[in-house]
């Protein structure tokens, strides 16, 4: 079929097809990224959250609240800028080296019926105290 067309036309068709495929792929990428993403919440917002929905919790570990037990870590997390509200958190899995009281963390998980945030295994991310600013602790 294409052989019968003149080269100019052939190139144009090729270009349109290629662009079409690229646009399709890009749309798929954009679409899936919105459904695959996890929304971020702070502890004060999580208190009212429905159990069972997965969120990225961002906040600050309450100093002195970290306990280690048989089934992993237990600690409390407060909002980044407001330490007045905090929620209990359970987590098992890798603990990044910088993790400790007072650090900012991101943890993926969901609220349980008893009002605690249950982190998924190996999803704990700790923000470094920064290479580029002095330690604020």
């Amino acid at each position, binding site marked *: 079929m294409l052989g019968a067309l003149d080269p100019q036309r052939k190139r144009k068709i090729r270009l349109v097809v290629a662009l079409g495929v690229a646009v399709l792929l890009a749309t798929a990428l954009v679409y899936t*990224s919105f459904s695959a993403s996890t929304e971020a919440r702070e502890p004060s917002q999580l208190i009212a959250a429905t159990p069972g929905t997965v969120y990225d919790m961002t906040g600050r570990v309450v100093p002195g609240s970290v306990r280690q037990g048989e089934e992993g870590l237990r600690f409390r997390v407060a909002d980044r800028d407001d330490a007045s509200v905090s929620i209990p958190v359970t987590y098992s899995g890798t603990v*990044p080296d910088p993790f400790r009281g007072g650090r900012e963390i991101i943890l993926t998980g969901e609220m349980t019926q008893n009002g605690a945030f249950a982190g998924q295994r190996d999803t704990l991310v700790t923000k470094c105290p920064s290479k*580029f*600013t002095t330690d604020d602790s």
Partner: protein
Amino acid sequence: MTASLGGVALALAFLTALVAVGMALLGRDGEQRWILFSRRAVYALCALLTLCVALVEVAFVGDDFSLSVVQGHSSIETPTFYKWAAMWSSQEGSLLLWAWVLSVASSLALYATRDKLREIVPWATAVMAGVASFFTGLMLFAGGVNPFSTLSPVPADGVGLNPLLQHPSMMIHPPMLYSGYVAFTIPFAFAIGALIARRLDASWIRATRRFALIAWALLGFGLLLGARWSYTELGWGGYWAWDPVENAALMPWLIGTAFLHSIMVQEKRGMLKVWNACLIVATFTLALLGTFLVRSGVLQSIHAFGDSTVGPYILGLIAVVLLGSTALIVSRLDDLRSEKRIDSLASREAVFLVNNLLLVALCATIFWGTFFPLIAELFTGEKSSLAAPWFDRYTTPLAIGLVLFTGVGPLLAWRRVSWASAKRVFLAPGIAAAAVAVGLLLFSDAASQLWAFALFVFAGFALTGLAQEFWRGAAARRSLRGGSMPQALVAIVAGNRRRYGGYIVHVGIVVLLVGIAASSSFQTNRDVRLAPGESAAVNDRTVTYERPTVAVDGQRFTLGAVVRVEQSDKEFVLTPSRDFFRPTGMSSGTIANFFDGEATTEVGLKAGFGSDFWIAMQPDVTDVLAAARAADEGFRACVRGAPGTPPQCRAVSQLMQAAAADPSLRPVALAQIESLQEATAARIARSYLTSGATATFRVIVDPLVTWMWIGGLIALAGALIAVWPARGRRRTPVVVGELEALKEAKYREIRDAELDHAAGKLSDEDFALLDAELRNEAVEILDRGNGAGASGRAEQAERPSEPV
């Protein structure tokens, strides 16, 4: 002294950079005087920034805490090795490193082109010096990032370097990444120069491709070191987490890879000029973006470096670069038209185009995922982010496609390949791929992971294809020149470093991807909680926690384990541990605050060609912490002079009271307290050994992961071979020099075609056609050199004298 000298040097560096820009612009019409002046200004800039770096390093090593950068990132106790590296752990030091590396690279580039590219060099100089003036100006004027700002009064000691950064990789990982980022400035600057001067043949590419390759290799090596650091040190057992800062370094590397391939198409065929200009602009912009990301705090990252004042300025520079370059490329579209078209889809240039598209798609995907939190917030108002599985889903197929084309590309000749020759070159790799597939199906469970299986099969294809290239090249060489096979192999590599160095890079990358695919798809990853004496079974291995260990000194508390691992025929002992550091800057304090400071994991690793055994420990510190708190409480009671405290404690308490009255006694009292605390800490440490000492161990069995590091090193070696300058290059006068370079390039193409023909990659007809075309082109070049109508063209277009 250091501060004032450094401040003056930095200010002079800024002015020198501006002067270099001014002189370069005056020399835009090619007036040698100004060009020479601007080049020397860049050399002077390099000297001044070298002085600045030397001053800062001397201040670090000499514990000069009058400089705030030294006070904030080093201390008397910091080991000397890390004092050298502490400079780039700071914001201001890393900016200084950026500017310094840029000045060195610019000087080298200008030296290498000192009598070439007369129209392009002034503009390129202006761009390089312009970027240098931006970064030096940033340190001087942005506020809070001047490496020579001082503290008064001068503190006695510094805060120290974060223990997490005290790892040998700190010495080379950041400088490698920075050098990679920065070195991409050179091809970018020459591309801009070529666009402005409308000199859009391949001359700017020939002059800077080595810099692009070096930048690519440095950035890649930096990424590899970072992955290794993460694997052995951070205690989670992974080497890549799709963290924004990792992605920020990967993106320019990917686009740089595309650039290195597509410039070959421009050099050989005069095509893809717009594409190449866009790629180098994108690479440089992404390098700046990486520099920006680590300093802006806009994205959540484990590398989050905190907000700082320089982010908005770098963003401004990125905007200027993007807008300026785009406008420039659009205004030069007419000059950027391709000289030729792609003849056939079965040709090396067509494969390069496909590989370019895959690399750009890979980068675009990573870019989208990295910036998704910002995009999502913009559209939905909700902060949300994408995790590793999303990245894996899209990048895996693209990476597998790349492996396939890494194998196919080198097998195809330029311009076109006939069906007959294609059959000949694809036969062996095809059989190898089939053999790999059958072997894996019969003898392993690799087929359970479809993507990994596909990657192994394609890797079999690619590696066999590359081996065939070496073998056929060497065989062709032998048939032309004789000699033994190893001699011939060395000779072909030495004779065409760029081509065979490139093939070695391909081998390395394929091996690296095999390591990644195997270790990520077939990893065993278990958490086990054990008390001393207990064992657990992981795969076919028995892991026994033999006994706990403990060590304590003034700075850290180390809890470790002796772990014995038994497999059917062998056994070995590993000693993972965890160090608890006192918070930085606190030489004394309570014992419990050891556990408030940084903790670092020392991984136990038994590496092997088949698989790695990796173990990290997370000791249960509940009991130790309770004991420490009790001891601290007891100590406080004792200092208060509470009744019933032991006598040595009462002595300290009396000493404290005396010190309160007489300040000269304070050092004695402090020393007394410290030694008492040390004794108590040692006692608590010993109590850990008897208190149960349960610990959680993360055990990972990682198949073939070693090949990832080996592959990376092979690729690095290949890149070094490719950049190594050829022996005995003559220096030639300016105008003739450029024609000479063109002629050389054409002769090389003719020799390549001959070799391809001899190696069976080109059929007889294809070769006859190609050879005739190439020789016509060579004649054209010779004509230009002799003026029109030179006689005896046919003789001049004789075969180049040196075959292969």
